[in-house]
């Protein structure tokens, strides 16, 4: 590990160009671990917690609350104890924003000034770091940060007061206040725009003669508010709803003075002012303008490319791949497909849809293939349902939307879903949960007339099926030379978790379903 490491502004989406520091959740001198929440950061779209992807002692906070920083800008410095302040100063002075990082989805740190490590959350095919739905064993997730130990003592004077739901406070401060029973009306906010921070709550408690246990690393809390977070049910004008979203105001906390009892623009501005916010700017802020401007440079695509490169290189280098291939005769399947397609105008089943269905049913029969491998914890996560990642080529890359629980879907459902997912993949409208995860992948290059190919495993999955094109071939049956339509499939498996015999048996099952498709109905 480098002796000095940077904490930088993360990139949470293709359109994110900068973030605003809301509040540090750790102090200089604190020891932080990978995965610890270290800061609240706002973008024009969300408020989110920055998690550290480095470990060590936070030596310097470079960014201060309220700072607006571009993606990949330096926010803080983590270093070991023996690094001198002068070395840290020099590191800060010579730090350069890595332009390639700022264009790519990345985590919150870069090692030294060197290019970032392969980023974690990515839109690319290999980004499959979701907890398994049926996790047999929890993954080696970052250990939960220790909560406060000991018993706090809070003076009664701080506990009474009116409903404090409208007090402008950070999520963490509100959570802490709730835990301690402190009414936020009794706390004066010193944060940005007068917002109450965790420090303010602590200050109020100790200032009033109370005491707090020693503070461990901050516990990660889900974003909750005193008012219901979902305000979609509140009657509001369109302008008010949008303004509330951009100002971070919950419509539940607004009065409704508009006609017909709707929350109107004035109400949102009033609630915002009450929460300590500045009056809404008349013109869009540069940040908003920047977000709505169309992306001109295709820089994010190169980020995807780099992610694909990094992940698949790691896969090929670290996973002991081996391949098993088999020829599958398609005549029965094609006949079935024709019957289905001719019988219902609303259905257009492709051969690939049938492959998805057959593989899904085979995975349920052979759960030892329907797995993810967690290398860190040496755990095999076995899935109950077959969540099948289907590789879709898009501009300058590929993405693997998932047909979830394909084993419980009809061929018609799978067909409609694959078509929709593929189109949405190309249009870039997939949600993260629609392409992250999956228990098995299928890559089909049949439409290019490919006769046979091998695919690289999409970790943490343990197998991928490469499907080539169907074609008429001479075959020998019972000593007779005949013509059959056939295709070749090749299964790449991770030998650490799937043995050769298992892979071969799995292909046999797939072949049986495809060559006798009525079995898929049985």
């Amino acid at each position, binding site marked *: 590990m480098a002796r000095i490491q940077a904490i930088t502004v993360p990139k949470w989406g293709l359109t994110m160009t900068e973030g605003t520091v809301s509040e540090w959740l750790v102090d200089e001198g604190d020891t932080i671990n990978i995965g610890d929440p270290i800061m609240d950061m706002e973008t024009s779209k969300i408020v989110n917690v920055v998690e550290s992807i480095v470990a060590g002692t936070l030596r310097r906070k470079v960014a201060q609350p309220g700072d607006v920083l571009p993606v990949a800008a330096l926010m803080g410095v983590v270093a070991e104890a023996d690094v001198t302040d002068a070395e840290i100063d020099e590191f800060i002075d010579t730090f350069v924003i890595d332009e390639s990082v700022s264009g790519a989805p990345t985590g919150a740190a870069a090692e030294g000034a060197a290019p970032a490590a392969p980023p974690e959350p990515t839109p690319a095919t290999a980004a499959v770091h979701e907890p398994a739905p049926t996790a047999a064993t929890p993954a080696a997730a970052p250990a939960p940060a220790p909560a406060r130990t000991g018993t706090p003592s809070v003076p009664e004077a701080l506990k009474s007061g009116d409903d404090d739901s409208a007090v402008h406070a950070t999520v963490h401060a509100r959570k802490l206040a709730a835990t301690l029973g402190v009414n936020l009306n009794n706390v004066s906010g010193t944060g940005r725009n007068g917002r109450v921070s965790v420090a303010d709550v602590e200050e109020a408690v100790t200032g009033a003669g109370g005491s707090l246990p020693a503070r461990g690393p901050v516990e990660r809390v889900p974003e909750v508010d005193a008012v219901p977070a979902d305000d979609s049910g509140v009657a509001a004008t369109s302008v008010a709803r949008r303004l509330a979203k951009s100002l971070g105001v919950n419509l539940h906390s607004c009065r409704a003075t508009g*006609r017909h009892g709707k929350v109107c623009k004035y109400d949102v501005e009033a609630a915002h002012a009450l929460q300590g916010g500045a009056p809404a700017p008349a013109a869009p802020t540069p940040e908003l303008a920047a977000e709505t401007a169309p992306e001109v440079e295709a820089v994010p695509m190169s980020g995807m490319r780099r992610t694909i490169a990094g992940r698949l290189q790691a896969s090929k280098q670290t996973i002991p791949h081996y391949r098993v291939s088999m020829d599958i005769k398609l005549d029965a399947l094609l006949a079935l497909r024709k019957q289905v397609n001719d019988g219902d*105008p*609303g259905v257009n089943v492709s051969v690939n849809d049938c492959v998805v269905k057959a593989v899904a049913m085979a995975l349920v029969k052979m759960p030892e293939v329907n797995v993810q491998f967690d290398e860190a914890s040496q755990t095999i996560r076995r899935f109950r349902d077959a969540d099948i990642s289907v590789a879709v080529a898009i501009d300058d890359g590929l993405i693997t939307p998932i047909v979830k629980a394909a084993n419980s879907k009809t061929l018609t459902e799978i*067909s409609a879903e694959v078509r929709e997912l593929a189109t949405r993949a*190309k249009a870039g*409208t997939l949600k993260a949960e629609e392409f992250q995860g999956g228990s098995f992948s299928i890559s089909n290059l049949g439409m290019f007339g490919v006769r046979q190919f091998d695919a690289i495993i999409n970790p943490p999955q343990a197998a991928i099926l490469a499907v080539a094109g169907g074609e008429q071939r001479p075959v020998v049956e019972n000593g007779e030379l005949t013509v059959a339509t056939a295709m070749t499939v090749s299964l790449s498996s991770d030998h650490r978790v799937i043995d050769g015999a298992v892979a071969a048996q799995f292909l046999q099952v797939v072949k049986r379903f495809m060559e006798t498709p009525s079995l898929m109905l049985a």
Partner: protein
Amino acid sequence: MSTSFDVIVVGGGPGGYVAAIRAAQLGLSTALVEKQHLGGICLNWGCIPTKALLKGAEVAHTLAHAADFGFTTGDISFDLKRLVKHSRDVSGRLAGGVGYLMKKNGITVVDGVARLAGKGRLSVDNDGRTVEYRADHIILATGARPRALPGIEPDGDRVWTYFEAMVPDALPQSLLVIGSGAIGVEFSSLYNDLGVEVTLVEVLDQIMPVEDAEVSAFVRQLFERRGIRVRTSTRVTAIDRHADSVTCHLEGADGSTESITVERVILSAGIRGNIENIGLEELGVETAGSFIRTDAWCRTNVAGLYAIGDVSGPPCLAHKASHEGVVCVEKLAGVADVRPLDRERVPGCTYCRPQVASVGMTEAQARAAGRSVNVGRFNLQANGKALAIGDATGFVKTVFDAASGELLGAHMVGPEMTEQIQGFGLAQSLEATDSDLAHTVFAHPTLSEAMHEAVLDALGRAIHQ
């Protein structure tokens, strides 16, 4: 050239080319098949060139009233060919613009006649050479054409459709227009302004049957004052074609008959969808009359097949087609905030003199739907701007739901009304109430003040009448 796309659009009119652009914008590989003219009827033979001709009619009208503004005009001559040339030039320029937009968005334009060859498959014939294309999503935007009446088939010479009416070599002495929808009414007004003797025949009991009865009656009165003969509740039972004239036999609903001999006839008795010879039957595509049946997202009953614009049913208007093109593509691409088109909220504009524009329900439709309504009216005679420009003929009518204050419909007749109807469209889209509109400040002096006053009148408190 690739023959496989995410989206293929059939038809390059205002529905098709807009759908193609939106699809390309969303990152989908897109092709557009067009058999003749990019821009479709709208740009080449409809909305745009007729507006260019109608401007000529307006100039004629202005010149006739130049004296009101202190101008003495000498002998005025008129060259029809130059007006027609202006109209064609505008069409040519815009069609070129569509070609540019296709190129700019990376859309593959395929020349030829398309036919569905199966689900997700399309064969395109270009002068006998057939190429098969594939796409996950095929959008039919094949448009519509004039509806022929038995015995009154257009012949391109004495019995015209809008195609011939748009490029006359010479002005006829007399003209009989069959059908008083937007097309019939616009040509009646145009040719009347250019000095042609016009008869307008409508089978229903009012001209512009989709418009509010008060608007229709008002326009009829003005037309008749201009010398246009109007016959409603009347059908053309037969025509006799002569060497350079046509005798039309009319029959009224009351049994009365009449024969009128004119030089030319324009047939504008509605349109029908272009659903033939595109392979719909083989795929089992459901139709309704001459139109393709679609759901709220423009999907047909066939997987991966969509229909937008005129071919998917009325209202057959360019802006409806364009809007459907966007809705259809955004839905199939999974765009988050897409909403279905509400066909009841498509504005309609007729560019006769005076202009007619409307959105939403007529008063009669609202009452028939069982709504308790508040109706407001304001006459342009009390609008300062209308008087100043010397064109204070017209009115604005609003129809509100008495209970909720919702704007159910708005109907406008008079100068520049087509430019203003969007104000009421916005109000409907944002679900503004009568009081929201009353609270809105309208600029003075504008024609749009009449819109405000018509709202106030519905609330019983118009200021200037």
